[in-house]
């Protein structure tokens, strides 16, 4: 049902592939080969496992949130990726790709970032492995995630503001890809989610699948009805879904509903978008009739993206997972709910999932739900209080 790996053209069903400038095509093939070799090399997997344990803090707990469960009338199990070093699941991917880049002899790492979590995680990997690092970040996001900008700079990374387009994640990805086209011989581009040209969606999934594999082990046979995660590009969700697909539980991806789907200002590419090509892959995206990609909107910078990983597009069409959207306002309430019932301030991205549980409390009554708590909310505290203050 799920694909162990995409086909030789990098396709998940009709999605994915490699729609990239010719300049990058040899590098993408080289990367695919290097990753394939590395993942079969016991010294690579052992080093990765040791770093995941001793440096990142894996395994993360699977925590039964008793007071939240009581408030919602269901059993909620939180996979605590927020407790990882740097505060989100993004480090799973950057440590993996950083090790791979070192193995490939590339001395420079670049990344795009929206919420700043992936930028921080990449800057962290660069510091750990002694590499140069540049992070592209939309000017709007630099404003709303100032804390993470400071963290990246402290870690020795150069933060490059992107002012084209809406100055958010889509533009940052484009800017990072342009850098890579020019510098590919000495630079590795650590893309931050299961997006981009093959092999990125597959490789990032493989580095994130530890989330779901651990969860299955921690459940130790316990029955689960629903597995839910937020979907920006879709890496924390795919990291969880990969282990569960075809095993019984319903898989639910929660996208950013922004100001509401009817306003057109949202990031719900799977719920309200259509197939097309963005950033090197065939997938669902937000676009107009001429094929111009529309700007997304979300209160959470990490979900503010008009595309989505191609494997999610495949999961959607094949009915392997179901995708829903939650608005900005609901997400803020979700953040409050988790903070007050559990003493856990989530990032705004996974706060969307908590909000979806609250909305669906009747249909989910009595069920057991696993949620990827993909990151902690420190980065969002200032923005949330500003919004609360003005609203």
């Amino acid at each position, binding site marked *: 049902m799920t694909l162990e790996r995409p086909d030789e053209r990098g396709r998940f069903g009709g999605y994915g592939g490699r729609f990239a*400038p010719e300049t990058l*095509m040899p590098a993408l093939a080289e990367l695919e080969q290097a990753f394939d070799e590395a993942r079969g090399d016991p010294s690579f997997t052992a080093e990765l496992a040791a770093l995941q344990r001793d440096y990142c803090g894996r395994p993360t707990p699977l925590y039964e949130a008793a007071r939240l469960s009581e408030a919602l009338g269901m059993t909620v199990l939180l996979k605590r990726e927020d407790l990882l070093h740097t505060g989100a699941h993004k480090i799973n991917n950057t440590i993996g790709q950083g090790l791979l880049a070192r193995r490939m002899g590339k001395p420079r790492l670049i990344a795009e970032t929206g919420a700043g979590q992936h930028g921080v995680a990449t800057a962290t990997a660069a510091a750990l492995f002694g590499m140069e690092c540049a992070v592209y970040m939309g000017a709007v996001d630099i404003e709303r995630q100032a804390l993470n900008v400071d963290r990246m700079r402290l870690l020795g990374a150069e933060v490059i503001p992107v002012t084209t387009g809406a100055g958010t994640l889509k533009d940052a990805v*484009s800017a990072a890809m342009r850098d890579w*086209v*020019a510098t590919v011989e000495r630079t590795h581009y650590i893309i931050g989610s299961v997006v981009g040209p093959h092999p990125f969606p597959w490789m990032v999934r493989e580095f994130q699948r530890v989330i779901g594999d651990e969860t299955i082990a921690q459940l130790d046979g316990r029955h689960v009805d629903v597995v839910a995660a937020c979907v920006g590009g879709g890496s924390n969700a795919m990291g969880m879904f990969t282990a569960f697909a075809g095993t019984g539980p319903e898989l639910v991806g929660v996208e950013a509903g922004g100001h509401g789907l009817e306003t057109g200002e949202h990031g719900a590419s799977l719920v309200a978008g259509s197939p097309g090509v963005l950033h090197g892959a065939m997938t669902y995206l937000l676009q107009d*009739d001429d094929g111009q*990609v529309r700007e997304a909107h979300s209160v959470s910078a990490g979900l503010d993206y008009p595309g989505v990983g191609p494997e999610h597009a495949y999961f959607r069409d094949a009915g392997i997972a179901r995708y829903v959207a939650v608005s900005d306002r609901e997400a803020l309430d979700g953040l409050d709910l988790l903070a007050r019932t559990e003493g856990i301030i989530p990032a705004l991205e996974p706060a969307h999932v908590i909000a979806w549980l609250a909305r669906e409390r009747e249909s989910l009554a009595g069920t057991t739900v696993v949620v990827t708590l993909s990151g902690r909310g420190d980065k969002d505290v200032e923005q949330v209080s500003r919004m609360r203050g003005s609203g």
Partner: protein
Amino acid sequence: MSFAERFAAAAADDRAAFLPYLMAGLPDPAASVDLFAALGEAGADGFEVGLPYADPLMDGPVIQAAGAAALGAGTTLAGGLGVARRVREATGKPCAVMTYVNPILRTGLDAFMGMAADAGVDAVIAADLPVDEAAPFVAAGAARGVGVVLFAAPTTSEERLRAVVDAGPVFVYGVAEMGVTGERAGVSEWAAGMSARVRALTDLPLVFGVGIATPRAAAAAARVADGVIVGTALVRRVLEAPDAAAAADGLREAGAAFAAAMRRS
């Protein structure tokens, strides 16, 4: 005249074909037709008509800004193809439209190629279309008499180069620099070597573009290619000109210098 005829005529003249790039709809659709025509008067052999796209992965800041301005001025896909049609009519010279994969797929492969054919477009270039995904584009274009251009980069392997040639492009677009479109100071260090590799495989026309910004760099490329594309250096003149008339004057002057640089002897 087709691209093939233009390349042949230029070769008979011991020069490469000069193929300037401008953005359709910049500063507005009517004026952009006049700007292409000015380059035609200055000696262009054919044109690359840029269709504005909001996420141009292969383009540097100047062409990004030009695309954003053309979109801001209301240039649609149909409007951009309309510019190509009028340029073709006004100059009688072949046009390739330069775009990205998504607008083509959104319109539909067959529908897009039909629109291009109706506009008299000779070839379609999509900057993010590698040979691996090109077959349906080439087939849909062939059904409507529209060619597809495919790329070769300095990093392209022998095997990939062979696939590019076998796919049957109108011409091979040699990427003269590692990187996105823009203005490089020097002469491409890759062009001569790539040219030898392509020539060893095929008689298909070879055109260099990306980063070629001075007559000196264009002259160096012209010695080893059938055609040379100059984009950013010209688009920048349009963006910086106070009005369309001044832009046309600037393009006539710059265009003449590039056209002169095409002569090999």
